[in-house]
């Protein structure tokens, strides 16, 4: 009989048992339970498959050069900081005499000793440090700009009757419809003409414009959700429009601002195509720089992996810290709190 089967399969749910938590009948039939288990296992497998490259990258970052290129690949290896040293420093191969001389020294620090063990000497910091700081400066500045400007225009679009509002919004969105590669050449020519090529300002400007459409749309969704009565109450209570915006709207859309900022930051941080075309020395960011770590004897995979891993960490931290806002962000603020 059906009822005994349910009781048998789920000893604590069913007629005659106290309701500990509410359960819908269609969720506790054996079939449904099987389905739930199957889906769970499938998600774990998919998540694992997705994470393998990341895991592999992290492993490679800690391998020594021979281990990184070993075939068949090594899963068990002796961890090494070669990759990071390669990333952050410029080195030179020492002659046997110089090597012997260096080995006598006692004032070497940890990194220098590590390098020396490979028969090399550190000449100075590599360009990667400045490239990473370029990435930081450009990503953070453009994010602040895109979110600030986006917030102001989203507020205007949400609260005022702007003539041709829908057309404007569509126009703003349409700036994102062209793939980046299509516009890089014209932008390259324009930037070179006005002297923005390979400058921080140029890259900040570009990423701000690129993120602005996204930021306007996302923030408009959040501001639309704040009832206008709050501001009207403040207006009646003797505040100006700007004060009402600052004291009432702003605190209520921190969620939206956080979500928007994360997305803008990730875009600007990860952007590759524009950065490759529009920067060379001064303003080069990390993404195009990392794969350019070609050593003398071929591709330095452990250095590239170390660079990629370091590059990933800020995004992971920011995403993790603001994860509860991201879901509302991807749904354009449509989830009720």
């Amino acid at each position, binding site marked *: 009989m059906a009822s005994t089967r349910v009781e048998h399969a789920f000893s604590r749910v069913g007629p005659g048992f106290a309701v500990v938590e509410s359960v819908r009948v269609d969720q506790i039939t054996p079939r449904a339970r099987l389905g739930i288990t199957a889906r769970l296992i499938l998600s774990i497998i998919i998540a694992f498959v997705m994470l393998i490259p990341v895991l592999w990258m992290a492993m490679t970052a800690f391998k020594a050069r021979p281990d990184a290129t070993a075939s068949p690949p090594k899963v068990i290896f002796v961890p090494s900081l070669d990759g990071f040293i390669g990333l952050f420093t410029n080195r030179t191969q020492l002659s046997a005499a110089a090597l012997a001389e260096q080995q006598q020294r006692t004032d070497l620090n940890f990194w220098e000793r590590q390098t020396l063990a490979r028969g090399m000497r550190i000449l100075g910091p590599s360009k990667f440090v400045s490239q990473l700081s370029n990435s930081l400066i450009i990503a953070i500045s453009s994010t602040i700009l895109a979110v600030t400007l986006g917030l102001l225009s989203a507020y205007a679009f949400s609260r005022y009757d702007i003539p041709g509002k829908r057309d404007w919004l569509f126009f703003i969105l349409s700036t994102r419809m062209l793939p980046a590669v299509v516009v890089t050449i014209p932008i390259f020519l324009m930037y070179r003409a006005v002297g923005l090529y390979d400058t921080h300002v140029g890259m900040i400007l570009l990423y701000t414009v690129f993120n602005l459409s996204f930021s306007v749309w996302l923030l408009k969704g959040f501001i639309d959700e704040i009832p206008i009565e709050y501001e*009207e*109450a403040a207006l*009646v209570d*003797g505040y100006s429009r700007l004060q009402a915006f600052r004291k009432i709207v702003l605190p*209520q859309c921190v969620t939206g601002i956080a979500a928007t900022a994360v997305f803008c930051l990730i875009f600007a941080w990860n952007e590759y195509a524009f950065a490759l075309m529009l920067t060379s020395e001064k303003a080069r960011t990390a993404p195009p720089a990392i794969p350019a770590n070609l050593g003398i004897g071929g591709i330095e995979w452990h250095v590239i992996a170390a660079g990629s891993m370091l590059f990933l960490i800020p995004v992971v931290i920011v995403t993790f810290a603001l994860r509860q806002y991201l879901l509302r962000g991807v749904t354009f603020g449509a989830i009720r709190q």
Partner: protein
Amino acid sequence: MAEIELRQVAKKFGDLWAVKPMDLTIYDGEFVALLGPSGCGKTTTLRMISGLEAVTEGRIFINGKDVTWLSASQRDIAFVFQFFALYPQMTVRQNIAFPLESQGMKRAEINQRVAEVVKLLEIGHLLQRKPPALSGGDKQRVALARSLVRKPACFLMDEPLGALDAEFREVMRAEIKRLHLAQHATTVYVTHDQVEAMAMGDRIVVMSAAEVQQIGTPAQVYHDPANLFVANFIGSPGMNLVPGKYVGDEVHLRGGSVYPTPPAWRPTLAARWQRDDVIVGFRPEAAQVSETGAIRGMVYASDLHGSYTMLHVSLNGELRPNGNGEDTIVHIRARRDVHYVIGSLVRFDLNPEMVRFFDPESEKAIAKEVRG
């Protein structure tokens, strides 16, 4: 305190008249209820008074000063919103102090003012909480406190009780009335609940379809409705409205009964009436059931209301359970201790003081001529 005057104030949204030109004077200390069905323009009227909505036509005066083009913050009014609009990120105390801070008031004075309203509304225990954690009634109290704290010239309230349970509405209704009496503040109160308007308003402005239908005291709009809309809208159930033909001092009602008009009305009806059709209006309590009553009908349904029975009487004299357009059902009040069998015949008379007549064409009430 303040007197508010609207002169030919109107609002158009695109081609739609939200409020057609209206005149209204709200006297100092008066409590005026703006009553009407959904979408009739009550909120729009209130928002125009507050300055949150610009007028399309007309002028608004507060204390004789033209405020038509002043912003909301310059009008010295308080607005209580239907959903309270308490700032969710601030505590109750911060919410109440917020209007005072805009004036750059000193901290000590703010604290004192807050303490006053907190005492008045008995919300001392809520001060450190945030609005989302409050019950509907408490939110309402805090919203009232926030509007009171500034001691504004007048209060504008947009269905402030609309979001509360029926039980709580009554408590808060009394509370608002008490505050009004204590403060003697000019108040405009929007509601679509006629019981609320009748209970609270010194005067009621009945609106429908963007137009003012009648302005009067609760007794006036109840007993002397200006037109069919008001007659039907006020009271639950509304006034009974029975079409008939006026023939020689009698009205032949639809359904066959013949109603002899009260003598006081005869000159008016005879003199003014060119055509013979007329609508007789009477409240349920105007009917007196009696063996010899002039109007007869059949009991269609009967509801016991505790102190009285409300009879639904079909004047057609026959039962048509599905009720088509021909049928005329009136509500009359009867004694609670008599059992009226459904389908039985009843006769009733009308209290001559409480009968009203309407013109079916213009839908307006016919004014009784007083011969001197």
